[in-house]
């Protein structure tokens, strides 16, 4: 039925365009003048018909399914209908029966409720179809009659287009609002179970044991991030300096794609590499020198995570080093400094704010990264700074708490949203500060 509705929608829209264009042409011939091109008259009518029918669908469709559910509940045993859990299960079964996908033998009550549901659904569909047809044709004929030489169809259509474009760019705002609302809402629900103080400062994390202190997760996340930045910081910065200051075009042609390839490797691939290759190597290397390394050590995850963020550090640092004015370098050379002295004493201090922000952005990436730590770091929430033991991170816990879990009211699943909230604001703050630094620094040299 939905398909039929959209077929009708498409047919009416196309018809509106053709009719509108034809009519406008006829008007132009008759009056010898037309403000807008005939196409714009057609486009305006077609858009109006399309918008009217889409809004009918958006408003009537949920009402229809609500009505069908109510009809099914009314046909059910009142005791079942009063209990939300049982009613929900029965409604799912009814939906299956209606689709003919129900496994096993349905009870008589269920079958009759399903019949009521199907009948009400059918009625709702017919009403929807009728309303859509009326709305579409109504708009079509109302606007068709208005086509006149003076009508500013192009301006009307362009205004519609502008609103559409504006709506599309507002999607970004809506997404942010959606993230904040959905995460915040669940977090507040979580705080009715667990006090925020206990959550933020508690030293023990064990959702099964009902203790939700996120400090061990934070320490684990920071430990892995620290290892990652210790790897990526020097490697990324030195590659950036080399690429910006020393590299010949040929070296650049080799090094730039190298870093781009590294940036493009999916993190699930890096996680596989970390868990199945790097971790065993570190483990056996550790035991060769008498160290006891956990098989899911923070070190392995941090090392591969560091490799992942090298491109972030290097490409951003490359940009800021290139942005340092050549006059500063020339001044330094004129004083007799060598190239490396110029870089260390002039270029890097000048580029420092930008490099700091590059590091902050890389850190925010590392904190939010999920797959590498899910595959290579552990689940045990140990409060330790030893990189050879298994630690867990915020993202690992979010994933573990939510994957495969269907119930949505326990403190366990809600705590994942609280963790997501912390993660969101942590990365957002880092990002915001980094961008502020970059902007300020840009103003300095502009």
């Amino acid at each position, binding site marked *: 039925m939905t398909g039929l509705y959209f077929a009708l929608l498409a047919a009416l829209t196309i018809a509106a365009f053709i009719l509108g264009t034809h009519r406008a042409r006829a008007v132009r011939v008759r009056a010898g003048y037309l403000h807008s091109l005939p196409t714009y008259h057609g486009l305006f009518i077609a858009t109006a018909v399309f918008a009217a029918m889409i809004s009918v669908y958006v408003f009537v469709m949920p009402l229809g399914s609500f009505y069908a559910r109510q009809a099914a509940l009314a046909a059910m045993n009142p005791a079942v209908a009063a209990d939300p859990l049982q009613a929900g299960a029965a409604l799912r079964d009814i939906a299956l029966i209606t689709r003919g996908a129900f496994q096993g033998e349905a009870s008589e009550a269920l079958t009759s409720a399903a019949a009521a549901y199907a009948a009400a659904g059918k009625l709702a569909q017919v009403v929807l179809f009728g309303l859509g047809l009326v709305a579409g044709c109504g708009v079509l004929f109302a606007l068709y009659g208005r086509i006149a030489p003076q009508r500013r169809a192009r301006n009307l259509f362009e205004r519609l*287009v502008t609103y559409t*474009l504006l709506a*599309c*760019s507002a*999607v*970004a*705002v809506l*997404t*942010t609002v*959606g*993230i904040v609302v*959905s*995460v915040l809402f669940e977090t507040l629900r979580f705080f009715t179970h667990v006090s925020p103080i206990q959550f933020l400062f508690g030293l023990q994390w064990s959702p099964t044991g009902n203790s939700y202190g996120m400090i061990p997760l934070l320490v684990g996340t920071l430990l892995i991030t620290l290892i990652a930045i210790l790897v990526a910081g020097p*490697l*990324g910065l*030195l*590659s950036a300096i*080399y*690429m910006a200051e*020393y590299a010949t075009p040929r070296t650049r042609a080799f*090094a730039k794609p190298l*870093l781009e390839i*590294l940036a*493009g*490797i*999916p*993190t*699930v*691939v*890096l996680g*596989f*590499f970390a868990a*199945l*290759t790097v971790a065993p190597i570190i483990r056996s290397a550790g035991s060769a020198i008498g160290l006891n390394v956990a098989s899911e050590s923070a070190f392995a995850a941090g090392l591969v995570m560091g490799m992942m963020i*090298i491109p972030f550090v290097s490409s951003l640092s490359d940009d800021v080093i290139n942005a340092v004015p050549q006059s500063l370098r020339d001044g330094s050379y004129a004083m007799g400094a*060598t*190239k*490396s*002295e110029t870089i*260390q004493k002039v270029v890097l201090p000048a580029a420092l704010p930008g490099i700091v922000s590059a590091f902050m952005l890389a850190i*925010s990436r590392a904190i*939010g*990264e*999920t*797959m590498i730590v*899910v595959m290579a770091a552990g689940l045990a929430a140990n409060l330790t700074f030893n990189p050879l033991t298994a630690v867990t991170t915020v*993202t690992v816990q*979010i*994933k573990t708490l*939510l*994957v*495969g879990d269907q119930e949505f009211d326990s403190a366990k699943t809600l705590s994942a*949203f609280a963790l*997501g909230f912390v*993660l*969101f604001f942590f*990365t*957002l703050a880092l*990002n915001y500060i980094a*961008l502020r630094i970059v902007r300020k620094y840009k103003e300095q040299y502009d």
Partner: protein
Amino acid sequence: MTDMAAGTTVGGRSAAAAEAHMAKRYRAERRFRAYGIAALGITAIFLVLLFVDILGKGIPAFVEHRLTLKVTADQTAIDPQKTNDPRIIRTGDFDSLIRDSLRAFFSDVTSRGERKKLASLLSSGAADDFRERVAADPSLIGKEITIQALLSDDADQYLKGQQTDVQVFGGEGSVAVAAARDLFTLSFLPRAPAGLLPGDILRTPGGAYRITQIAGATITAEPIGMSAPLTTDEWDLVRFSVPEGNRRIDDQEALWLEALKSQGLIERGFAWRFLTAGDSREPELAGIRGALFGTILTLLVTLVLCLPIGVAAAIYLEEFAPKNKFTEIIEVNINNLAAVPSIVFGLLGLAMFLNFFGLPRSAPLVGGLVLALLVLPTIIIASRAALRAVPPSIREAALGVGASPQQAVFHHILPLAMPGIMTGTIIGMAHALGETAPLLMIGMVAFIVDVPGGITDAATVLPVQIYLWSDLPETAFQAKTAGAIIILLLFLFVMNAAAILVRRRFERRW
């Protein structure tokens, strides 16, 4: 400068000291340069290691071993009522036909345990091809046909040499096997082969014996399977480098496989199954078809949503947006969204799309929605850059001949910016293709064998399949995981190459 001679000072230093100082500075210069090269080198080495490791682990996933068997498609086992109805034929007992055919090679295998062990060399899906062939052509019933039966993952790994190395030494002279109480003693004539080790296996036509102890001239051994005392000059020695306890194929199974191999019955082929089969609990039967289709559906939803919205947003912000507070909020939002961890988008999908709007779990529709929001900033930023790169003279010329601002954009600027937008979109899609975490959140982790029929069916995608397989204990799945990674990287490579191609071919420099 002319009076610079020994004894004069440069910067407060003697000339010699100054020269030494200069040399030091130049060394520091070279060292600094070397650090840069080293940093790039380490990154390159890491990348090479990653690819070599993935290829090394993954290429075996594209090879499978099959056993060539002659099987009679027995009427009573397959279709006793002679209906010739494919549906009834498919319920026939093809497995036992194949098992019997395999057993015919090993007449000495009689005990129940050994028969089971022999049958376990075959995959549980070994009869699938046979069954389909007979169902498609019922006239084969009653005839003897040659089929290829898939071997189990353990047997397959053994034949790929992943379980143990095998060495075979030819035997000269004769050997006598004598039973003394429970033990067998071996006497080689004229002398025992040099370098004989405990654990070596003596193969004779009458049975196999594992050497347990070598004490001077007395060599004791235990039989593998059914064996009896005998004297023969037809023998050889087999040595496995990995002890029996450390591999999943034991000595007896290994000897069976060696025997089948020496008869030329084992065939090595490209594992099309890996590309054409759905997921399975059995590593040798598992394939990525379902995940591939899930990926395609999910990416289609993503593309359909984020390309128009992204381009529209870019056009608005670049061409029509007034300079006001709201525009600024939108711009800040887009930049921030680009930095939000992907798992948070998963939380959004879970709370909003699944719980609030009640969309189906695990569906490509929801996955596509979440990925669309995730890559939207990328596409908007790339499209804005492409629009900005079109010179203002184009717009001015269009406005000059009487076009409205929208006509100038849609008729002139947008077509010229299209190559840049396409490049950005392909790169955004490549990002979406590799994303895993948000899809885990919305439940695309289900075990799905079938190809999803639509965007609301449960499905999984390639990166999630990789994650799921990497978690499984069977070592054969490790190869499958790496194989799936190779396919994923191949797709990414093709997409990025396409982006570069579009850029090279269509992008204009002004």
